[in-house]
Protein backbone atom coordinates (compact mmCIF):
# COMPACT_ATOMS: atom_id res chain seq x y z
CA UNK A 1 0.00 0.00 0.00
CA UNK A 2 1.16 3.52 -0.76
CA UNK A 3 1.53 5.87 2.19
CA UNK A 4 -0.74 8.55 0.69
CA UNK A 5 -3.55 6.00 1.02
CA UNK A 6 -3.30 6.00 4.82
CA UNK A 7 -6.18 7.51 6.75
CA UNK A 8 -5.48 10.38 9.15
CA UNK A 9 -5.71 8.01 12.12
CA UNK A 10 -3.46 5.39 10.48
CA UNK A 11 -0.90 8.09 9.62
CA UNK A 12 -0.80 9.39 13.19
CA UNK A 13 -0.42 5.84 14.57
CA UNK A 14 2.26 4.87 12.03
CA UNK A 15 4.26 8.02 12.81
CA UNK A 16 3.95 7.44 16.56
CA UNK A 17 5.17 3.85 16.21
CA UNK A 18 7.98 5.15 14.00
CA UNK A 19 6.90 2.78 11.22
CA UNK A 20 7.03 5.63 8.72
CA UNK A 21 8.69 9.01 8.46
CA UNK A 22 6.76 12.17 7.71
CA UNK A 23 9.03 12.72 4.68
CA UNK A 24 7.85 9.41 3.22
CA UNK A 25 4.20 10.40 3.55
CA UNK A 26 4.88 13.74 1.82
CA UNK A 27 6.82 11.96 -0.89
CA UNK A 28 3.86 9.65 -1.59
CA UNK A 29 1.39 12.56 -1.65
CA UNK A 30 3.74 14.58 -3.90
CA UNK A 31 3.99 11.66 -6.32
CA UNK A 32 0.20 11.28 -6.50
CA UNK A 33 -0.10 15.01 -7.23
CA UNK A 34 2.60 15.00 -9.88
CA UNK A 35 0.91 12.08 -11.61
CA UNK A 36 -2.68 13.32 -11.47
CA UNK A 37 -3.11 17.00 -10.64
CA UNK A 38 -2.66 18.37 -14.15
CA UNK A 39 -5.42 16.04 -15.33
CA UNK A 40 -7.83 16.23 -12.38
CA UNK A 41 -7.22 19.94 -11.56
CA UNK A 42 -7.65 19.51 -7.81
CA UNK A 43 -5.09 21.97 -6.39
CA UNK A 44 -5.02 25.59 -7.55
CA UNK A 45 -1.82 26.22 -5.59
CA UNK A 46 0.44 24.23 -3.28
CA UNK A 47 2.46 25.19 -0.24
CA UNK A 48 6.16 24.99 -1.06
CA UNK A 49 7.07 25.11 2.64
CA UNK A 50 4.75 22.25 3.63
CA UNK A 51 7.40 19.64 4.45
CA UNK A 52 9.56 22.10 6.41
CA UNK A 53 6.53 23.18 8.42
CA UNK A 54 5.62 19.52 8.94
CA UNK A 55 8.99 18.68 10.47
CA UNK A 56 8.44 21.35 13.11
CA UNK A 57 4.98 20.00 14.00
CA UNK A 58 5.78 16.36 14.80
CA UNK A 59 4.74 16.62 18.46
CA UNK A 60 1.37 18.26 17.78
CA UNK A 61 -2.00 16.41 17.54
CA UNK A 62 -2.03 16.31 13.73
CA UNK A 63 1.72 15.44 13.54
CA UNK A 64 2.49 17.74 10.59
CA UNK A 65 0.30 15.76 8.18
CA UNK A 66 -0.71 17.30 4.83
CA UNK A 67 -4.24 18.73 4.73
CA UNK A 68 -6.00 20.05 1.60
CA UNK A 69 -7.83 23.34 2.19
CA UNK A 70 -10.60 24.79 0.02
CA UNK A 71 -9.50 28.00 -1.65
CA UNK A 72 -12.06 30.17 0.17
CA UNK A 73 -10.15 30.13 3.48
CA UNK A 74 -7.85 33.15 3.86
CA UNK A 75 -4.29 31.88 4.31
CA UNK A 76 -1.35 34.21 4.89
CA UNK A 77 1.39 33.64 2.33
CA UNK A 78 -0.78 31.41 0.13
CA UNK A 79 -2.98 32.84 -2.63
CA UNK A 80 -6.72 32.77 -1.89
CA UNK A 81 -9.01 33.11 -4.90
CA UNK A 82 -12.30 31.36 -4.07
CA UNK A 83 -11.79 30.12 -7.65
CA UNK A 84 -12.77 33.56 -8.98
CA UNK A 85 -10.79 35.81 -11.30
CA UNK A 86 -11.96 38.71 -9.14
CA UNK A 87 -9.54 37.48 -6.46
CA UNK A 88 -6.78 36.28 -8.81
CA UNK A 89 -3.45 37.33 -7.29
CA UNK A 90 -4.95 38.14 -3.85
CA UNK A 91 -2.60 37.35 -0.94
CA UNK A 92 -4.46 37.51 2.39
CA UNK A 93 -2.87 39.56 5.17
CA UNK A 94 -4.75 37.61 7.83
CA UNK A 95 -5.47 33.96 8.58
CA UNK A 96 -8.90 32.33 8.88
CA UNK A 97 -9.65 30.97 12.35
CA UNK A 98 -10.04 27.44 10.95
CA UNK A 99 -6.63 27.35 9.21
CA UNK A 100 -4.93 29.12 12.12
CA UNK A 101 -6.21 26.47 14.56
CA UNK A 102 -5.39 23.72 12.08
CA UNK A 103 -1.77 24.87 12.07
CA UNK A 104 -1.61 25.36 15.84
CA UNK A 105 -2.64 21.70 16.09
CA UNK A 106 0.04 20.57 13.67
CA UNK A 107 -2.03 20.31 10.47
CA UNK A 108 -0.12 21.59 7.44
CA UNK A 109 -1.87 23.29 4.54
CA UNK A 110 -0.63 21.16 1.66
CA UNK A 111 -2.44 23.14 -1.00
CA UNK A 112 -5.57 25.15 -1.81
CA UNK A 113 -8.29 23.24 -3.64
CA UNK A 114 -10.50 24.14 -6.56
CA UNK A 115 -14.17 24.94 -5.99
CA UNK A 116 -17.13 26.48 -7.73
CA UNK A 117 -16.31 30.19 -7.99
CA UNK A 118 -17.34 31.84 -4.70
CA UNK A 119 -18.79 28.41 -3.73
CA UNK A 120 -21.71 29.12 -6.07
CA UNK A 121 -22.51 25.67 -7.35
CA UNK A 122 -22.52 21.92 -6.90
CA UNK A 123 -20.18 20.75 -9.64
CA UNK A 124 -16.79 22.54 -9.30
CA UNK A 125 -17.42 23.22 -12.96
CA UNK A 126 -18.11 26.93 -12.49
CA UNK A 127 -14.55 27.57 -11.25
CA UNK A 128 -12.89 30.38 -13.20
CA UNK A 129 -9.78 28.17 -13.28
CA UNK A 130 -11.31 25.14 -14.98
CA UNK A 131 -13.35 22.20 -13.74
CA UNK A 132 -12.11 19.48 -11.39
CA UNK A 133 -12.69 15.87 -12.49
CA UNK A 134 -13.95 13.08 -10.25
CA UNK A 135 -10.97 10.80 -9.41
CA UNK A 136 -13.30 7.79 -9.14
CA UNK A 137 -14.30 8.28 -12.78
CA UNK A 138 -12.87 11.28 -14.66
CA UNK A 139 -15.77 11.41 -17.10
CA UNK A 140 -17.86 12.59 -14.17
CA UNK A 141 -17.98 15.69 -11.98
CA UNK A 142 -16.77 15.69 -8.36
CA UNK A 143 -19.76 17.72 -7.14
CA UNK A 144 -19.28 20.97 -5.27
CA UNK A 145 -18.72 23.48 -4.20
CA UNK A 146 -15.96 21.77 -2.12
CA UNK A 147 -15.27 19.49 -5.11
CA UNK A 148 -11.50 19.97 -5.02
CA UNK A 149 -11.31 18.96 -1.34
CA UNK A 150 -13.51 15.88 -1.90
CA UNK A 151 -11.47 14.91 -4.96
CA UNK A 152 -8.19 15.36 -3.04
CA UNK A 153 -9.42 12.68 -0.62
CA UNK A 154 -10.74 10.32 -3.30
CA UNK A 155 -7.43 10.62 -5.21
CA UNK A 156 -5.34 10.22 -2.01
CA UNK A 157 -3.73 13.57 -2.83
CA UNK A 158 -3.91 14.57 0.84
CA UNK A 159 -4.44 12.77 4.13
CA UNK A 160 -7.51 14.83 5.05
CA UNK A 161 -9.26 17.97 3.78
CA UNK A 162 -11.26 21.00 4.82
CA UNK A 163 -14.25 22.43 2.97
CA UNK A 164 -17.20 24.65 3.68
CA UNK A 165 -20.91 24.16 3.20
CA UNK A 166 -23.80 26.52 2.74
CA UNK A 167 -26.25 23.89 1.48
CA UNK A 168 -24.65 20.64 0.39
CA UNK A 169 -21.18 21.93 -0.46
CA UNK A 170 -19.42 19.47 1.87
CA UNK A 171 -21.85 16.55 1.79
CA UNK A 172 -22.77 16.45 -1.91
CA UNK A 173 -19.17 16.34 -3.27
CA UNK A 174 -18.38 13.82 -0.51
CA UNK A 175 -21.25 11.67 -1.80
CA UNK A 176 -20.17 11.98 -5.44
CA UNK A 177 -16.52 11.20 -4.65
CA UNK A 178 -17.25 8.37 -2.21
CA UNK A 179 -15.72 10.05 0.86
CA UNK A 180 -16.89 11.22 4.29
CA UNK A 181 -18.07 14.85 4.66
CA UNK A 182 -19.24 16.35 7.95
CA UNK A 183 -21.18 19.61 8.06
CA UNK A 184 -21.23 20.73 11.70
CA UNK A 185 -24.11 22.70 13.22
CA UNK A 186 -24.14 26.28 11.97
CA UNK A 187 -22.12 28.22 14.56
CA UNK A 188 -20.05 25.23 15.72
CA UNK A 189 -17.10 26.38 13.60
CA UNK A 190 -15.96 29.97 13.13
CA UNK A 191 -16.56 31.62 9.76
CA UNK A 192 -13.86 34.23 10.40
CA UNK A 193 -11.61 34.53 7.37
CA UNK A 194 -13.79 32.37 5.10
CA UNK A 195 -14.88 34.18 1.93
CA UNK A 196 -18.52 34.91 2.80
CA UNK A 197 -21.27 33.39 0.72
CA UNK A 198 -24.55 33.04 2.62
CA UNK A 199 -23.65 34.20 6.12
CA UNK A 200 -26.70 32.67 7.82
CA UNK A 201 -25.79 29.12 6.74
CA UNK A 202 -22.02 29.01 5.93
CA UNK A 203 -20.39 26.18 7.93
CA UNK A 204 -16.77 25.01 7.55
CA UNK A 205 -16.12 21.30 8.11
CA UNK A 206 -13.94 18.24 7.35
CA UNK A 207 -13.85 15.99 4.25
CA UNK A 208 -12.01 12.78 5.10
CA UNK A 209 -11.47 9.10 4.42
CA UNK A 210 -13.35 7.87 7.52
CA UNK A 211 -15.80 9.14 10.13
CA UNK A 212 -13.03 8.79 12.70
CA UNK A 213 -10.79 11.09 10.64
CA UNK A 214 -13.59 13.65 10.38
CA UNK A 215 -13.82 13.73 14.20
CA UNK A 216 -10.05 14.07 14.66
CA UNK A 217 -9.89 16.94 12.16
CA UNK A 218 -13.01 18.70 13.48
CA UNK A 219 -11.53 18.58 16.99
CA UNK A 220 -8.67 20.75 15.75
CA UNK A 221 -10.77 23.73 14.67
CA UNK A 222 -14.31 23.64 16.18
CA UNK A 223 -15.36 25.82 19.09
CA UNK A 224 -15.92 29.40 20.22
CA UNK A 225 -14.27 32.33 18.46
CA UNK A 226 -14.56 35.94 19.59
CA UNK A 227 -14.05 37.00 15.96
CA UNK A 228 -17.36 35.45 14.87
CA UNK A 229 -20.45 36.67 16.73
CA UNK A 230 -22.56 33.79 15.40
CA UNK A 231 -20.20 31.18 16.85
CA UNK A 232 -21.48 29.04 19.74
CA UNK A 233 -19.60 30.25 22.83
CA UNK A 234 -19.87 26.86 24.51
CA UNK A 235 -16.78 24.68 24.32
CA UNK A 236 -17.02 22.08 21.56
CA UNK A 237 -17.07 18.44 22.72
CA UNK A 238 -14.31 15.92 21.93
CA UNK A 239 -15.90 14.54 18.78
CA UNK A 240 -13.74 11.38 18.86
CA UNK A 241 -15.40 10.40 22.16
CA UNK A 242 -18.56 9.46 20.19
CA UNK A 243 -16.76 6.85 18.09
CA UNK A 244 -17.23 3.13 18.65
CA UNK A 245 -20.37 3.66 20.76
CA UNK A 246 -23.40 1.39 20.88
CA UNK A 247 -26.37 2.59 18.84
CA UNK A 248 -28.76 0.25 20.63
CA UNK A 249 -32.17 1.85 21.11
CA UNK A 250 -31.47 4.85 18.90
CA UNK A 251 -34.41 5.86 16.75
CA UNK A 252 -33.76 6.56 13.09
CA UNK A 253 -36.35 8.09 10.77
CA UNK A 254 -35.88 7.48 7.05
CA UNK A 255 -37.18 10.54 5.24
CA UNK A 256 -37.89 11.45 1.59
CA UNK A 257 -38.91 7.88 0.69
CA UNK A 258 -41.89 9.44 -1.09
CA UNK A 259 -39.78 11.68 -3.36
CA UNK A 260 -40.39 9.99 -6.68
CA UNK A 261 -37.32 11.34 -8.53
CA UNK A 262 -35.04 9.32 -6.26
CA UNK A 263 -36.91 6.00 -6.18
CA UNK A 264 -33.97 3.80 -7.13
CA UNK A 265 -31.51 5.50 -4.75
CA UNK A 266 -34.08 5.28 -1.95
CA UNK A 267 -34.57 1.57 -2.50
CA UNK A 268 -30.86 0.87 -2.24
CA UNK A 269 -30.53 3.01 0.89
CA UNK A 270 -33.42 1.30 2.65
CA UNK A 271 -31.76 -2.05 2.05
CA UNK A 272 -28.42 -0.88 3.41
CA UNK A 273 -29.98 0.59 6.54
CA UNK A 274 -31.00 -2.92 7.65
CA UNK A 275 -27.59 -3.26 9.33
CA UNK A 276 -28.54 -0.52 11.79
CA UNK A 277 -31.47 -2.66 12.93
CA UNK A 278 -29.11 -5.57 13.47
CA UNK A 279 -27.00 -3.27 15.63
CA UNK A 280 -30.03 -2.55 17.80
CA UNK A 281 -31.35 0.71 16.41
CA UNK A 282 -34.98 1.24 15.45
CA UNK A 283 -35.35 2.21 11.80
CA UNK A 284 -38.65 3.35 10.33
CA UNK A 285 -39.95 5.45 7.47
CA UNK A 286 -40.90 8.96 8.55
CA UNK A 287 -42.88 11.67 6.78
CA UNK A 288 -40.99 14.95 6.36
CA UNK A 289 -42.02 18.21 4.74
CA UNK A 290 -41.66 18.18 0.94
CA UNK A 291 -38.01 19.00 0.13
CA UNK A 292 -39.00 20.75 -3.11
CA UNK A 293 -39.99 23.90 -1.19
CA UNK A 294 -36.48 24.04 0.25
CA UNK A 295 -35.14 24.73 -3.24
CA UNK A 296 -37.11 27.98 -3.30
CA UNK A 297 -36.17 28.93 0.26
CA UNK A 298 -32.51 28.31 -0.30
CA UNK A 299 -32.42 29.96 -3.71
CA UNK A 300 -33.96 33.17 -2.42
CA UNK A 301 -32.05 33.36 0.88
CA UNK A 302 -28.73 32.43 -0.70
CA UNK A 303 -29.03 34.87 -3.63
CA UNK A 304 -30.01 37.70 -1.28
CA UNK A 305 -27.07 37.08 1.07
CA UNK A 306 -24.72 36.68 -1.90
CA UNK A 307 -25.86 40.00 -3.31
CA UNK A 308 -24.96 41.73 -0.02
CA UNK A 309 -21.75 39.80 0.65
CA UNK A 310 -20.29 40.20 -2.81
CA UNK A 311 -20.99 43.94 -2.87
CA UNK A 312 -17.63 44.39 -1.11
CA UNK A 313 -15.62 43.30 -4.15
CA UNK A 314 -14.94 46.68 -5.73
CA UNK A 315 -11.38 46.10 -6.93
CA UNK A 316 -10.18 49.10 -4.90
CA UNK A 317 -8.77 47.61 -1.70
CA UNK A 318 -7.92 44.20 -3.14
CA UNK A 319 -8.77 41.99 -6.11
CA UNK A 320 -9.96 42.94 -9.57
CA UNK A 321 -13.00 44.95 -10.58
CA UNK A 322 -16.55 43.62 -10.93
CA UNK A 323 -16.27 42.91 -14.65
CA UNK A 324 -14.28 39.81 -13.61
CA UNK A 325 -17.28 37.96 -12.12
CA UNK A 326 -18.18 34.76 -14.00
CA UNK A 327 -21.65 34.01 -15.39
CA UNK A 328 -22.92 32.03 -12.40
CA UNK A 329 -21.86 34.73 -9.93
CA UNK A 330 -23.43 37.47 -12.04
CA UNK A 331 -26.69 35.51 -12.10
CA UNK A 332 -26.68 35.01 -8.35
CA UNK A 333 -25.68 38.53 -7.36
CA UNK A 334 -28.26 40.07 -9.66
CA UNK A 335 -31.10 37.72 -8.72
CA UNK A 336 -30.40 38.50 -5.07
CA UNK A 337 -30.45 42.20 -5.80
CA UNK A 338 -33.77 41.73 -7.57
CA UNK A 339 -35.43 39.81 -4.72
CA UNK A 340 -34.31 42.46 -2.23
CA UNK A 341 -35.58 45.46 -4.19
CA UNK A 342 -38.61 47.36 -3.03
CA UNK A 343 -41.82 45.58 -3.90
CA UNK A 344 -40.18 42.17 -4.30
CA UNK A 345 -38.72 41.72 -0.82
CA UNK A 346 -42.09 40.65 0.63
CA UNK A 347 -42.97 38.56 -2.36
CA UNK A 348 -39.73 36.57 -2.27
CA UNK A 349 -37.32 37.23 0.59
CA UNK A 350 -39.78 37.41 3.48
CA UNK A 351 -41.87 34.58 2.06
CA UNK A 352 -38.75 32.37 1.86
CA UNK A 353 -37.84 33.20 5.47
CA UNK A 354 -41.35 32.18 6.54
CA UNK A 355 -41.16 28.83 4.76
CA UNK A 356 -37.79 28.42 6.47
CA UNK A 357 -39.69 28.63 9.77
CA UNK A 358 -42.01 25.84 8.57
CA UNK A 359 -38.99 23.59 8.04
CA UNK A 360 -37.65 24.39 11.52
CA UNK A 361 -41.02 23.47 13.02
CA UNK A 362 -41.16 20.28 10.98
CA UNK A 363 -37.72 19.22 12.22
CA UNK A 364 -38.72 19.99 15.80
CA UNK A 365 -41.66 17.65 15.45
CA UNK A 366 -39.60 14.92 13.75
CA UNK A 367 -36.84 15.10 16.34
CA UNK A 368 -39.38 14.66 19.13
CA UNK A 369 -39.79 11.12 17.73
CA UNK A 370 -36.38 10.34 16.24
CA UNK A 371 -32.75 10.80 17.29
CA UNK A 372 -31.47 10.94 13.73
CA UNK A 373 -33.01 11.35 10.27
CA UNK A 374 -31.53 9.87 7.12
CA UNK A 375 -32.00 10.19 3.35
CA UNK A 376 -29.77 9.99 0.29
CA UNK A 377 -27.38 12.97 0.13
CA UNK A 378 -27.86 13.42 -3.59
CA UNK A 379 -30.60 12.12 -5.90
CA UNK A 380 -28.17 9.84 -7.78
CA UNK A 381 -24.54 9.23 -8.80
CA UNK A 382 -22.10 11.94 -9.90
CA UNK A 383 -23.28 13.60 -13.11
CA UNK A 384 -21.21 13.70 -16.28
CA UNK A 385 -18.94 16.64 -17.05
CA UNK A 386 -20.80 19.53 -18.66
CA UNK A 387 -24.03 18.75 -16.77
CA UNK A 388 -23.97 21.94 -14.70
CA UNK A 389 -24.36 24.12 -17.78
CA UNK A 390 -27.66 22.53 -18.74
CA UNK A 391 -29.78 24.40 -16.18
CA UNK A 392 -29.55 27.65 -14.22
CA UNK A 393 -30.90 25.61 -11.28
CA UNK A 394 -28.47 22.67 -11.57
CA UNK A 395 -27.02 23.02 -8.08
CA UNK A 396 -30.31 23.53 -6.34
CA UNK A 397 -31.83 20.41 -7.87
CA UNK A 398 -28.76 18.33 -6.98
CA UNK A 399 -28.77 19.69 -3.43
CA UNK A 400 -32.52 19.46 -2.89
CA UNK A 401 -32.22 16.68 -0.30
CA UNK A 402 -29.86 18.60 2.02
CA UNK A 403 -31.11 22.17 1.62
CA UNK A 404 -33.87 22.02 4.24
CA UNK A 405 -31.42 20.86 6.91
CA UNK A 406 -28.90 23.51 5.86
CA UNK A 407 -31.27 26.46 6.12
CA UNK A 408 -32.21 25.03 9.54
CA UNK A 409 -28.57 24.96 10.68
CA UNK A 410 -28.56 21.21 11.46
CA UNK A 411 -25.42 19.07 11.56
CA UNK A 412 -25.16 16.33 8.92
CA UNK A 413 -22.70 13.74 7.71
CA UNK A 414 -22.30 11.95 4.39
CA UNK A 415 -21.08 8.35 4.37
CA UNK A 416 -20.88 6.14 1.26
CA UNK A 417 -23.64 3.51 1.17
CA UNK A 418 -23.28 1.98 -2.28
CA UNK A 419 -20.66 1.50 -4.98
CA UNK A 420 -21.45 0.84 -8.62
CA UNK A 421 -18.76 -1.49 -9.94
CA UNK A 422 -19.38 -0.64 -13.58
CA UNK A 423 -18.86 3.13 -13.23
CA UNK A 424 -16.81 3.07 -9.99
CA UNK A 425 -19.16 5.76 -8.63
CA UNK A 426 -20.69 6.00 -5.16
CA UNK A 427 -23.96 6.90 -3.49
CA UNK A 428 -23.96 8.67 -0.12
CA UNK A 429 -26.32 8.72 2.85
CA UNK A 430 -26.91 11.92 4.83
CA UNK A 431 -27.57 11.50 8.56
CA UNK A 432 -28.84 14.63 10.33
CA UNK A 433 -29.55 15.50 13.98
CA UNK A 434 -30.83 18.51 15.96
CA UNK A 435 -28.61 21.61 16.35
CA UNK A 436 -25.48 21.02 18.48
CA UNK A 437 -26.04 17.25 18.61
CA UNK A 438 -23.24 16.10 16.33
CA UNK A 439 -22.69 13.15 18.67
CA UNK A 440 -25.79 11.41 17.32
CA UNK A 441 -24.79 11.49 13.67
CA UNK A 442 -21.22 10.51 14.52
CA UNK A 443 -22.37 7.45 16.49
CA UNK A 444 -24.65 6.23 13.71
CA UNK A 445 -22.34 7.06 10.79
CA UNK A 446 -19.36 5.43 12.51
CA UNK A 447 -21.35 2.27 13.23
CA UNK A 448 -22.69 2.18 9.66
CA UNK A 449 -19.24 2.68 8.16
CA UNK A 450 -17.58 0.00 10.28
CA UNK A 451 -20.29 -2.57 9.65
CA UNK A 452 -20.73 -2.18 5.88
CA UNK A 453 -18.37 -2.69 2.96
CA UNK A 454 -18.72 0.69 1.28
CA UNK A 455 -15.85 2.70 2.72
CA UNK A 456 -12.98 2.24 0.27
CA UNK A 457 -10.25 2.83 2.89
CA UNK A 458 -11.68 0.51 5.51
CA UNK A 459 -12.14 -2.17 2.83
CA UNK A 460 -8.86 -1.88 0.93
Amino acid at each position, binding site marked *: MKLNQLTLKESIDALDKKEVKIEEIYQAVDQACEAENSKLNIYLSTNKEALNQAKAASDKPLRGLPIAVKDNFCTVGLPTTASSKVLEGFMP*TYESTVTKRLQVNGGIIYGKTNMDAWAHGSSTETSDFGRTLNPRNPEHLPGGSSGGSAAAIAADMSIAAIGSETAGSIRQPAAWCGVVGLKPS*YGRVSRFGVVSMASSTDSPGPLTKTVEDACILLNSFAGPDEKDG*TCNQEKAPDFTSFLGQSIKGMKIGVIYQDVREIGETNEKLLKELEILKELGAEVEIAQAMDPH*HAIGVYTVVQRAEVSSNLARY*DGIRYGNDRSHFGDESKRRI*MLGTYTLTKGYADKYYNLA*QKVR*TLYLENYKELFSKYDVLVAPTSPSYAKKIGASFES*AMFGELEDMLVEASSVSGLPGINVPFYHDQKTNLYLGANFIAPMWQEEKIIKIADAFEKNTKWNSWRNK
Partner: protein
Amino acid sequence: MSVNNTQVKHIAKLANIPISEEESQTLAKAFSETLEVVDNLKKADVSQVKTTHQVTGFKNVLREDIAKEKNSFSQKEALANAKVTYKGYFVVPYVLQNKDN
Protein backbone atom coordinates in the same frame (compact mmCIF):
# COMPACT_ATOMS: atom_id res chain seq x y z
CA MET B 1 -43.00 35.38 -12.96
CA SER B 2 -40.92 36.41 -15.94
CA VAL B 3 -38.28 39.10 -16.16
CA ASN B 4 -37.46 41.10 -19.30
CA ASN B 5 -34.07 42.41 -20.32
CA THR B 6 -34.91 46.04 -19.48
CA GLN B 7 -35.45 44.93 -15.87
CA VAL B 8 -32.22 42.93 -16.02
CA LYS B 9 -30.28 46.01 -17.14
CA HIS B 10 -31.76 48.01 -14.26
CA ILE B 11 -30.79 45.31 -11.75
CA ALA B 12 -27.29 45.14 -13.26
CA LYS B 13 -26.92 48.86 -12.60
CA LEU B 14 -28.10 48.47 -9.00
CA ALA B 15 -25.72 45.55 -8.45
CA ASN B 16 -22.88 47.37 -10.21
CA ILE B 17 -22.29 44.47 -12.61
CA PRO B 18 -21.31 45.46 -16.14
CA ILE B 19 -23.25 43.34 -18.67
CA SER B 20 -23.59 43.33 -22.46
CA GLU B 21 -26.86 43.51 -24.41
CA GLU B 22 -26.50 39.84 -25.27
CA GLU B 23 -25.93 38.91 -21.62
CA SER B 24 -29.05 40.81 -20.59
CA GLN B 25 -31.07 38.51 -22.87
CA THR B 26 -29.59 35.27 -21.48
CA LEU B 27 -29.84 36.54 -17.91
CA ALA B 28 -33.52 37.42 -18.40
CA LYS B 29 -34.14 33.83 -19.50
CA ALA B 30 -32.17 32.40 -16.56
CA PHE B 31 -34.00 34.66 -14.10
CA SER B 32 -37.38 33.56 -15.40
CA GLU B 33 -36.36 29.90 -15.17
CA THR B 34 -35.17 30.36 -11.57
CA LEU B 35 -38.20 32.39 -10.46
CA GLU B 36 -40.49 29.73 -11.88
CA VAL B 37 -38.99 27.26 -9.38
CA VAL B 38 -39.08 29.82 -6.59
CA ASP B 39 -42.76 30.55 -7.29
CA ASN B 40 -43.52 27.11 -5.83
CA LEU B 41 -43.10 28.77 -2.43
CA LYS B 42 -46.39 30.54 -2.92
CA LYS B 43 -48.20 27.23 -2.43
CA ALA B 44 -47.10 27.13 1.22
CA ASP B 45 -49.54 28.50 3.82
CA VAL B 46 -47.54 31.01 5.81
CA SER B 47 -50.34 33.30 7.00
CA GLN B 48 -49.63 32.48 10.68
CA VAL B 49 -45.86 32.07 10.36
CA LYS B 50 -43.04 34.36 11.46
CA THR B 51 -39.81 34.83 9.49
CA THR B 52 -36.55 33.10 10.49
CA HIS B 53 -33.42 35.13 9.81
CA GLN B 54 -31.00 33.14 11.96
CA VAL B 55 -31.04 29.71 13.53
CA THR B 56 -28.72 29.83 16.55
CA GLY B 57 -31.10 31.74 18.80
CA PHE B 58 -28.19 33.82 20.15
CA LYS B 59 -29.19 37.39 20.91
CA ASN B 60 -27.17 40.59 21.16
CA VAL B 61 -23.71 39.09 21.02
CA LEU B 62 -21.48 41.93 22.17
CA ARG B 63 -17.85 42.48 23.07
CA GLU B 64 -16.02 45.25 24.89
CA ASP B 65 -15.50 48.24 22.60
CA ILE B 66 -11.73 48.05 22.73
CA ALA B 67 -9.48 48.14 19.69
CA LYS B 68 -7.14 45.17 19.69
CA GLU B 69 -3.92 45.85 17.87
CA LYS B 70 -3.23 42.21 17.14
CA ASN B 71 -6.58 41.97 15.34
CA SER B 72 -6.03 45.12 13.28
CA PHE B 73 -4.18 45.79 10.05
CA SER B 74 -1.22 48.12 9.90
CA GLN B 75 -1.50 50.70 7.13
CA LYS B 76 1.00 48.70 5.12
CA GLU B 77 -1.02 45.48 5.47
CA ALA B 78 -4.28 47.24 4.60
CA LEU B 79 -2.78 48.61 1.40
CA ALA B 80 -0.88 45.44 0.48
CA ASN B 81 -3.41 44.17 -2.06
CA ALA B 82 -4.57 47.51 -3.53
CA LYS B 83 -3.86 47.96 -7.23
CA VAL B 84 -3.41 51.75 -6.96
CA THR B 85 -2.31 53.69 -3.90
CA TYR B 86 -1.21 57.30 -3.40
CA LYS B 87 0.86 58.46 -0.43
CA GLY B 88 -0.55 55.70 1.79
CA TYR B 89 -4.16 56.04 0.61
CA PHE B 90 -6.43 53.92 -1.58
CA VAL B 91 -7.19 55.56 -4.92
CA VAL B 92 -10.91 55.42 -5.72
CA PRO B 93 -12.84 56.38 -8.88
CA TYR B 94 -14.55 59.78 -9.03
CA VAL B 95 -17.99 59.73 -7.47
CA LEU B 96 -18.87 63.44 -7.75
CA GLN B 97 -18.16 65.17 -11.02
CA ASN B 98 -18.09 68.86 -11.90
CA LYS B 99 -21.20 69.36 -14.04
CA ASP B 100 -19.18 71.32 -16.61
CA ASN B 101 -16.96 68.29 -17.24
